[in-house]
């Protein structure tokens, strides 16, 4: 199956995009595969092996303690010895409530859904992978670094990269969501790979129009699709892009 990775800075709206895009494609429920890094680090890393126990939830739960790990845990599968995966099925609105939130680093592991896109008479399936947000600097929290490391390692194996930038904060210096180093490096990396586009998100918010223009100026030669992950605007274009790359 083709893999499509969704990445970007923290709070850019990656998770909301994934969930609403699934809904846009007529999914009422989503089964999410959580692939979380397990405590035992890769050889040679200096991370404290006790830093994280297997039972912790994958997302920082913005509401209460509903642990997505409660269902069908499957340790040892997935990303080699250093991850464990489990699945949980949500109604879209419940997933939005539980897995998105205004705080950065809500998502702390790979969370993927499988989507079906209509193609001619048939259907094409794609694994859409939500990731942990990437910061410009080095994060002091080892757990978050490990989560970001998953994003880095899965990007190399992805066929399609959707790079989300918060257009409402694109030019706001100092905001975690502001466009920064990592955005430029992602674009430069993706340039030589193809199958890449930028989603300029949150166009429903004030100031976002200017943000979209700024993103276009900063990333000439890249496809920029303005979207609102909240109101599912621009999703038709995203769908067309993904289909074209499948």
């Amino acid at each position, binding site marked *: 199956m083709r*893999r499509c990775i969704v990445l970007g800075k923290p709070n850019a709206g990656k998770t909301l995009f994934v969930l609403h895009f699934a809904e846009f494609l007529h999914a009422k429920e989503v089964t999410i595969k959580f692939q979380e890094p397990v405590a035992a*680090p*890769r*050889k*040679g*890393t*200096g*991370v404290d092996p006790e830093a994280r126990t297997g039972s912790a939830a994958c997302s920082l739960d913005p509401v209460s303690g509903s642990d997505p790990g409660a269902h069908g845990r499957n340790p040892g599968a*997935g*990303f*080699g*010895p*250093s*991850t464990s995966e489990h699945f949980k099925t949500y109604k879209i609105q419940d997933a939005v409530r539980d897995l998105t939130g205004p705080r950065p680093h809500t998502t702390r592991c790979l969370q993927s859904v499988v989507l079906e896109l209509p193609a001619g008479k048939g259907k094409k399936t794609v694994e859409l992978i939500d990731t942990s947000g*990437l*910061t*410009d*600097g*080095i*994060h*002091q929290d*080892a757990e978050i*670094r*490990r989560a*970001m*490391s998953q*994003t*880095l*390692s*899965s*990007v*190399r*194996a992805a*066929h399609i990269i959707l790079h989300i930038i918060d257009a409402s904060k694109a030019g706001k210096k100092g905001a975690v969501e502001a466009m*920064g*180093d*990592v955005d*430029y*490096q*992602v674009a*430069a*990396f993706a340039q*030589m*790979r*193809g199958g890449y586009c930028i989603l300029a998100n949150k166009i429903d918010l004030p100031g976002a129009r200017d943000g979209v223009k700024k993103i276009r100026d900063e990333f000439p030669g890249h496809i920029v699709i303005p979207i609102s992950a909240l109101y599912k605007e621009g999703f038709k274009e995203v769908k067309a892009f993904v289909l074209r790359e499948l």
Partner: protein
Amino acid sequence: MTNCAKPSANCAKRLVNSMSVSNDAKPGVNSYSLRDIDAVLSAFEEGRLTPAQAFSLFREMGPQFEAPPGQGQDAESSNASRLREALNELDSLIGLHSVKRLVREILAFVQIQKKRARQQLATEHLVLHMIFKGNPGTGKTTVARIMGKIFRETGVLERGHLIEVERADLVGEYIGHTAQKTREQIRKALGGILFIDEAYSLARGGEKDFGKEAIDTLVKSMEDYRDRFILILAGYSEEMNYFIQTNPGIRSRFPIHIDFPDYLPDELIQIAELMLKKREYKLDPWARNHLYTILTKHASNLDHNAGNARFVRNIIERAIRRQAVRLVDKENPTREELMLIRREDIGEGL
């Protein structure tokens, strides 16, 4: 491993240097191994690199696509089984013995280069652009398509799809138009194979012809998108030989030449039967005999159409239509009757 107290572009550079197999190793197919990617990820997890620096290191490692880590084994075994499938498909082609042998040689070469890289031995840079020489309908496109699959499963190509074009798809009407059209086709072929049929026609018309612009654009893209697509130039043997001789720039960039000989009448009959079997039809003995006569006669004409699988396909497809006409007024044709192609359906060739 290099230790960097403070992350900086310099530190990232040093890290990359400490990782490459040798200092003159170019970022290409085999110069970096997964261990190096692991090294970047470890450095990142230890807090010695920013995400931006990690991406810039990835970029230096080249665009090589990787199977997802971990799913590794699954992915690897399904790669292996899809590779076997593609090889079966190759084997199931009728005739083409020398072509099959050469494809296996190339595959072996690719696989050994990979194993050598894993053992940190010097590797040859893989240049897999090819020239296919032979008459139309000798299976060139069919073989190219299978090669795409083989290269995909061995990790040489990201997608392995085939974009088939000819002169008209590349050459435009005014200055600059050709480069634009050619680049567009290359873009579509990235990750796969660009197959140019009757490629020699690009050199027709001499210096002033826009075909030359297409050739120049192709040559440039072969540098710009090294390892990202494979270019196959196909056409009649004589024309291709002349084309190669008169375009030294082309000659030096296409190390692999494959000859597609015409099929023998026996092979053509087998191809016919294979095509019919796929469509759930069969020849009755009279029809088979008659078809054999047509094919032999045709082959002895020694024109470009001799030994042509496309010729066979046309005969078959017309025979299927004629059988339908023959049966359409019949009350209750049996299953056997619906499958059988008779002599009269074959007619007198084309």
